[in-house]
């Protein structure tokens, strides 16, 4: 077989057989896999290098769990909370998957911090890696954006008020602040348009940007090559390399397994809570963001009024700018942390400051008896809500809505006539409509009282064809009936 002339063109490259060979000949899969797996790692595989792969893994897990959560979720202020409660309390594995997704966001932030810290301490941003670092900074911001936008979606008390605070902070930015705030909220106040915007950002815009920047980040990483250990030259590595596959792949896979097991244990034994539905009127509620925003939350407390420009814009802006421009500022090729006291010192200082702010926030919440009691009450309310059975949302056409009309005595009389004349048999109670006849809710917007009276006395041919018979009533009863129809909303 191998001597036949047809086989000759392929004879140069190792040829695979079977199903894999069939695909390889058509896709070049083998070459792609080799390109991906044979990436050289100077100095060999290490546990310290797992965080990048782990972030990719958790991102994919977030995408998959997020996609299935949308099977039941509805992004509207009316329904969001009910549908999340439905997912949590009714749908099989719903609480588990939602918890994996919610805890996954925390896991992603933790891994992101570890990835950045490893890159920083190892000086892996050095040696023609400026764009790699910058694309990573964009991904950092995008992940924080995902966390911020996802937090609102359950539309519970915590989500609503924390987002109200978060968007208020954006409003503090001088000149364009109010404009940014209105743009984020889809209006001056928080409402259903806010939810639509956050939803679109969370499931379409930011994920699309993350996909694009992950591709760019990986491309730039492969272009620059793995930086290797701290005593390695970042541009022209000298230490004997080891390929990514198999050892680093196995280490990464074991770490991924550990992450998913931790998330699964949390999801199983400490399900992520859903609090009672957002109630903007509750002024006692103390909104608190997710843990990773707490230090910034605390920081902003120190910059009231005219100083807010400095605290909210200038200082964080300078820190972010310095952080992003790190590979441009730190041009030395020295990578060992103990030889870079200024850079490492600054990094450690910022981290300690963030921890400190978090600790201060915790102490001020738990040190004040009033705050502490309120926070405990909020926690209790959430636990209580979790234990209540799922309560379906009452549809607009339901009895409770229909009965609202009875406050008006004429409408109440009309309602009796509506039932006595069997109108409800076809048009449903409260004009909700049935398969036999259309709904009458909102009909007053399309026809005047006189037009309705005329139609009831002499139905149109279309109505007659549908089974509507002419109605003969004393004028007073007809008025009552038409009044009642006006109440159907």
């Amino acid at each position, binding site marked *: 077989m191998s001597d036949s002339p047809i086989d000759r063109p392929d004879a140069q490259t190792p040829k695979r*057989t079977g199903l894999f060979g069939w695909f390889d000949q058509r896709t070049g899969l083998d070459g792609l896999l080799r390109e991906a797996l044979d990436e050289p790692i100077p100095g060999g595989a290490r546990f310290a290098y797992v965080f990048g792969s782990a972030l990719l893994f958790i991102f994919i*897990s977030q995408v998959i769990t997020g996609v299935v959560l949308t099977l039941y979720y509805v992004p509207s202020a009316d329904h969001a909370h*009910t549908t999340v409660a439905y997912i949590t309390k009714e749908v*099989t*594995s719903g609480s588990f*998957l939602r918890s*994996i997704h919610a805890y996954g966001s925390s896991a992603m932030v933790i891994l992101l911090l570890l990835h950045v810290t490893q890159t920083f301490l190892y000086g892996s941003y050095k040696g023609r890696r400026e764009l790699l670092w910058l694309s990573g900074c964009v991904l950092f911001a995008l992940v924080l954006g995902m966390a911020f936008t996802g937090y609102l979606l359950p539309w519970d008390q915590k989500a609503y008020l924390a987002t109200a605070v978060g968007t208020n902070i954006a409003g503090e930015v001088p000149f364009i602040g109010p404009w940014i705030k209105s743009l984020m909220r889809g209006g001056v106040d928080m409402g259903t348009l806010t939810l639509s915007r956050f939803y679109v950002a969370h499931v379409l815009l930011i994920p699309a940007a993350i996909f694009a920047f992950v591709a760019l980040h990986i491309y730039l990483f492969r272009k620059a090559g793995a930086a290797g250990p701290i005593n390695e030259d970042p541009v022209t590595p000298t230490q004997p390399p080891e390929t990514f596959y198999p050892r680093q792949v196995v280490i990464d896979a074991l770490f991924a397994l550990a992450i998913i097991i931790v998330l699964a244990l949390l999801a199983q034994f400490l399900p992520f809570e859903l609090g009672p539905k957002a109630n903007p009127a509750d002024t006692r509620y103390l909104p608190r963001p997710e843990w990773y925003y707490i230090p910034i939350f605390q920081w902003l407390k120190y910059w009231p009024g005219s100083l807010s420009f400095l605290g909210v814009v200038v200082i964080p802006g300078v820190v972010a700018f310095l952080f992003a421009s790190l590979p441009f500022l730190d041009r030395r090729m020295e990578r060992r942390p103990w030889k870079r006291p200024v850079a490492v010192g600054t990094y450690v200082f910022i981290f300690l400051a963030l921890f400190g702010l978090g600790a201060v926030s915790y102490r001020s919440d738990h040190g004040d008896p009033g705050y502490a009691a309120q926070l405990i009450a909020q926690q209790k309310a959430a636990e209580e809500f979790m234990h209540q059975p799922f309560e379906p949302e009452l549809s607009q056409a*339901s009895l409770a809505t229909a009965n609202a009309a009875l406050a008006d005595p004429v409408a109440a009389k009309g309602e009796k006539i509506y039932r006595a004349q*069997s109108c409800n048999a076809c048009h449903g*109670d409260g004009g909700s409509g049935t398969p036999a006849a259309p709904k009458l809710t909102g009909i007053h917007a399309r026809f005047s009282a006189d037009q309705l009276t005329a139609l009831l006395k002499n139905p149109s041919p279309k109505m007659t064809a549908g089974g509507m018979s002419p109605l003969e009533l004393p004028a007073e009863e007809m008025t009552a009936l038409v009044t009642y129809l006006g109440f159907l909303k």
Partner: protein
Amino acid sequence: MSHHEIDTPASNGEPSRRSYIGWLMGLCSTGVGAVLAFPLVRFALYPLTAKTTETKWSDVGPASDFGSVTTPVQRSVTMEQLDGWRKTVSEKIVYVTKDGSGQLRVLSAICPHLGCSVQWTGSKHEFVCPCHGASFATDGTRTGGPAPRGMDSLESAVQADRLVVRYRYFRQLVPDKEVIG
């Protein structure tokens, strides 16, 4: 065939290390796959295992109230329809009566002709539809008028000494009872 040896792991000289790595990779993929795939499938297939749309049993009253009925009794029942995470509550009129063998039977008040509410007319000892005059016997069988079939009986049961009924809508103007909606 001449390249066959490239595909054979044994020829790479490290069969035990290779199989160890293969085992670890298998463990990780199976572990991650099982933790995620199983709940994902259960979540997506939830509508196959649970009733996501349902008309609940409506309470008509204590069963003892109807033991001695001789003429049909009108009752208003609260109908609760579940549709995923929402429900619709409405009030419906039914008649509790007895069939030929003396068993309780619950009839929908909706006329199978054009859907008006059928009334029990004690003086004539029959059901009469006020719209087009269809008439029905005590047990709901058609006795006259334009209706294509008798009054529609509803699925009913006695649960914990209460008479309950599952309210349904039926297609009008057809000779055979057919559930809609």
